[in-house]
C-alpha cells in the first residue's frame, strides 16, 4: 500500500505504481497499488523440461508462464474469453484454411533482441506442431506460416481448421520462444529449456534443484509499468503437508493448485492473515473419470456400465471426498465450459436398487457370498482425491455385488499398465478439459488410438457413430454448427458410457492476505502474474 514505511526502494516503486494507476485503466480497477517485493510460492514438482512451447502442462506453465508468453491468455471479460498477449488481433479465413495474427509491436526478448513474426513462425512450425504434446493435435494440419511483415503471421492449413479450436487453444499451445536461440540447435536439448528466455514480465534468474526457482522483474516489459513484483520465488516443497505449515509460519505467501490439502482448508481459512481462494481455475477444469476396459465382457455390456454409474453417489464424492470444492459431472464437457456444455443428457442418479436390478438383468446374478464378479481397479496416483475416490468406488461397487480389487502403482507404472498394457478393468483418471473438446477430451473416447498414448481411449471402446461426430466436428468451420456437434457428442457419451464422468473440480489457492490480485483470470495460476502485487 502507499502507506508503507517509506524506505527508498518502496518509495520509488510506490511512485511507479501511482503513475501506473493513472496510465492504465485496468490497473486502476485492480485491488491496490504495489510496493514491489518478493512473492514466495510453494511448488511441488520440478519439471525437467521447463519449456512451455514443448511441454504444455500445468506443472511447467506454473513457473514458465511468467517468463514465456502465449499469443493470447484466457480472460473473464475479454471477447471469446481471451485477452491479447503477444498477438493483438486474430482472424480466420472463410474457408478455414488460414488464420492471420497481428502481433504486438515494441516487444523485446529478455536478451534484448526484438520479437518478430519470425519467432512465431519458428515456434509454430519447429516446436508446437512437431514437438508439443497438445500442439501436435491442434496444429496437425498446419502447413506454413507466412510472415509478410514483422508484425503479421499467417498460419496456413492443409485442411479446414476451425478458428474456434485455434482460439480456445491459444492460451495453452501458443507459447512463443526466441528463434535466435533455438534455430539450428537440438530443440529438445537446448539449454534455454531450463534457463528460459522469453518476453514475459519476469526473467528467469536462477534454479537451485530441490530448493527453488527464482524469477526477477523484467524492467523492459511491454506491459510497463507492470509487473508489480520485484521477484517471484517458487520454493520446492515436496511434502503435501509442507505448504500449509510454511504458509502459517509466513515462510511462503501463496500455495496454488491445492497444495494445501482440501481437508486442511477449513482450519487454515480461520487462521488470521490467510485467505482461501476458489477462483482462478475456471479454464483448468479437471475431471474425475472412471475409465472402463471394454475388453472385459461384463463391462462391454451397457447395462453393467449403467449399473456402475448408478452405484456411484456423486453427492458423497463431491461433499466428502472433495469437501464441496467440486461439482457433480453430467458428461464429458464440464459446466465451466458454457460455450459447449449441454445439461440435456442422460443422467444416472445414485440408486443402488436400480444398479442391482440392471446387473441382474444383464445376467450376472449374485453368488452365495453376494458377489457377482471381480474387477481390477486402478486409481491414478496423481491426486489424493483420485486415490480416495478409488477407495470409495471399491466400497460403492461392493454394495452392488461387484468385488473390486484396488491396484495402486506409482505414476510410471500406472501409465504403463493402463495406457500401454491395458492391464485394468476400471481405472480412475483425472483428465483436464482444456477449453475445447477437440484438444484433450474427444481423444478419451475416440477409437483407433495406438497403445501407449496417455490420457486417451485405451479401453478398446469403438463407436462408429461417435467417431463420425468427432471427425465431423474437427473439420467444421462454422462455430455454431461445430458447437452443436459437440452437444451431440456429449449426449452420445452420456448415453453409451464409454467412460463414466463423476465430478469436475478446479483447484484452490491459499494465500496470505498481503497478496493482491489473485485469481484475476480463469487460468490465473498458470498466467503471467504481471498484475499480482504485495501489500505493504
Amino acid at each position, binding site marked *: 500500500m502507499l502507506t508503507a514505511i517509506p524506505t527508498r526502494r518502496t518509495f520509488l516503486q510506490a511512485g511507479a505504481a501511482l503513475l501506473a494507476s493513472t496510465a492504465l485503466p485496468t490497473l486502476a480497477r485492480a485491488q491496490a497499488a504495489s510496493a514491489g517485493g518478493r512473492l514466495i510460492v510453494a511448488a511441488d514438482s520440478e519439471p525437467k523440461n521447463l519449456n512451455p512451447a514443448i511441454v504444455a502442462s500445468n506443472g511447467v506453465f506454473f513457473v514458465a508462464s511468467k517468463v514465456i508468453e502465449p499469443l493470447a491468455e484466457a480472460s473473464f471479460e475479454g471477447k471469446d474469453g481471451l485477452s491479447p498477449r503477444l498477438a493483438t488481433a486474430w482472424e480466420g479465413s472463410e474457408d478455414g484454411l488460414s488464420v492471420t495474427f497481428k502481433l504486438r509491436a515494441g516487444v523485446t526478448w529478455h536478451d534484448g533482441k526484438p520479437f518478430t513474426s519470425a519467432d512465431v513462425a519458428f515456434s509454430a512450425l519447429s516446436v508446437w506442431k512437431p514437438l508439443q504434446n497438445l500442439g501436435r493435435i491442434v496444429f496437425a494440419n498446419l502447413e506454413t506460416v507466412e510472415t509478410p511483415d514483422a508484425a503479421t503471421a499467417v498460419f496456413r492449413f492443409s485442411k479446414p481448421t476451425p478458428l474456434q479450436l485455434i482460439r480456445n487453444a491459444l492460451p495453452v499451445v501458443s507459447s512463443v520462444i526466441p528463434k535466435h536461440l533455438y534455430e539450428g540447435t537440438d530443440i529438445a536439448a537446448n539449454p534455454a529449456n531450463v534457463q528460459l528466455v522469453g518476453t514475459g514480465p519476469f526473467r528467469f534468474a536462477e534454479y537451485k534443484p530441490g530448493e527453488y526457482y527464482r524469477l526477477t522483474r523484467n524492467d523492459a516489459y511491454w506491459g510497463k509499468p507492470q509487473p508489480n513484483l520485484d521477484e517471484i520465488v517458487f520454493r520446492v516443497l515436496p511434502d*503435501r*503437508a509442507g505448504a*500449509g505449515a510454511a504458509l502459517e509460519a509466513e515462510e511462503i505467501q501463496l500455495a496454488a493448485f491445492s497444495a494445501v*490439502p482440501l*481437508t*486442511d482448508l*477449513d*482450519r487454515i481459512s480461520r487462521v488470521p492473515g490467510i485467505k482461501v481462494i476458489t477462483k482462478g481455475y475456471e479454464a483448468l477444469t479437471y475431471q474425475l473419470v472412471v475409465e472402463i476396459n471394454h475388453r472385459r465382457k461384463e463391462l462391454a455390456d451397457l447395462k453393467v456400465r449403467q449399473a456402475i454409474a448408478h452405484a456411484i453417489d456423486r453427492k*458423497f464424492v463431491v461433499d*466428502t*471426498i472433495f469437501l464441496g470444492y467440486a461439482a457433480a459431472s453430467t458428461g464429458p464437457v464440464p459446466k465451466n465450459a458454457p460455450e459447449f456444455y449441454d445439461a440435456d443428457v442422460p443422467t444416472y442418479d445414485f440408486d443402488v436398487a436400480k444398479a442391482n436390478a440392471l446387473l441382474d438383468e444383464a445376467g450376472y446374478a449374485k453368488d452365495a457370498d453376494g458377489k457377482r464378479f471381480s474387477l481390477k481397479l486402478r*486409481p491414478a*496416483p496423481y491426486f*489424493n482425491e483420485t*486415490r*480416495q475416490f*478409488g*477407495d*470409495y468406488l*471399491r*466400497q460403492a461397487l*461392493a454394495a452392488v455385488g461387484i468385488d473390486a*480389487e*484396488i*491396484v*495402486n*502403482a*506409482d505414476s510410471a*507404472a500406472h501409465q504403463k499398465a493402463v495406457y500401454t498394457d491395458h492391464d485394468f478393468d476400471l481405472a480412475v483418471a483425472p483428465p483436464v478439459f482444456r477449453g475445447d473438446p477437440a484438444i484433450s477430451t474427444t481423444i478419451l473416447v475416440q477409437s483407433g488410438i495406438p497403445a501407449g498414448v496417455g490420457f486417451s481411449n485405451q479401453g478398446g471402446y469403438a463407436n462408429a457413430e461417435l467417431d463420425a461426430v468427432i471427425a465431423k466436428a474437427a473439420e467444421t468451420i462454422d462455430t455454431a454448427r461445430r458447437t452443436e456437434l459437440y452437444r451431440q457428442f456429449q449426449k452420445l457419451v452420456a448415453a453409451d458410457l464409454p467412460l463414466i464422468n463423476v465430478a469436475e473440480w478446479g483447484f484452490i489457492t491459499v494465500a496470505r492476505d498481503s497478496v493482491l490480485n489473485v485469481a484475476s483470470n480463469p487460468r490465473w495460476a498458470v498466467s503471467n502474474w504481471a498484475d499480482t502485487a504485495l501489500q505493504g
Partner: protein
Amino acid sequence: MRTMRRLLATPEGAVGLALLACLALVALFAPVLSPGDPLRIAGRALTTPFSDPAFPLGTDRLGRDVLAGLIHGARTSLAVGLAAAAAALAMGLCVGLAAGFAGGLLDEALMRMVDAFQIVPGFLLALAFVSVVGPSVPVVVLAIALGAWADPARLTRAQVLSVRERDYVAAARVAGMHPVEIAVREILPNVLPPVLALSAIIVAAAILTEAALSFLGLGDPNVVTWGSMIAEGRNVLRSSPWLSIFPGIALVLTVVGVYLLGEGLTRALSGRRAAA
C-alpha cells in the same frame, strides 16, 4: 519351558509378552470384535472420538470406523511384521547354513552376496522394490525381508562355524550322515536360539518399515494397516489429530512390546547359556 519361565522372570519379558498377548488376541479375534470390512464407509466423515457410541474412536476422512481400522490393523501390521521376519530368518538361515557348512567358494560367493545386501540401505531397497513391483502385502513383506536377511545370515554362519568342529558334529560326519542331514539335525538346533533373539528386532523394524512405506504411499490399498492409517491421518494432522494419534499409539505399543520381549528373550537365553 525353562526358557519361558526365565523369560517371564525378567520384567522386560513379562511386560513385552503381556503387551503382545493382548495384541495377538485382538488380531486373532478381529473378525469377531469388529465384523465386516474395516474399510467400509460406515458413517459420517470425521466424527470426533468419544462423541458417537457407534464409533468410539471416531471416523476418518471417508467415514470409516477408526476402531475397526485399529483392530483389523493389528492383524495386518502384526502379520506383515511376523511374515517379514519369518521370511528374513528363513532366507538368512538357509544362506548362513549353506555358507558356513559348505565353506570354500560357495561360502565366499554367498558372503559377498550378504555383504552386498548389508551395505545397501535397507529402506532405499524396500522403497525401490515396492515402487517398482507395485504395493501389495506380499511385495511389502518381501521388500522388508530383503533388507533384513543379511544379519541373520551372518549370525547363522558364525554360529555354524563355531559348532561345526565340535565333537558331535564330527561324529555325525564320521558316521556318514548326509551333510544336509547334519546341518538340519545337529547344527540347526544350536544355531536357532541366538538367531531367534535377533528376530524380535527384525519384527519391530519390519512394522516400522511398513508404516514408513505406507507413509510414502506404498502400502497395500486393499487392507488397513496402522501405517496407512497414520499416512491418511497426516493430511488432517492439524484439524483431526486423533486420526494419526490412535494408530500411532498402537504402533508404538507394539514395537515396545516386541522389543521388550526380544530383550527378555536375550537375557533368558544368555542366562541359559551361562547356566549350561
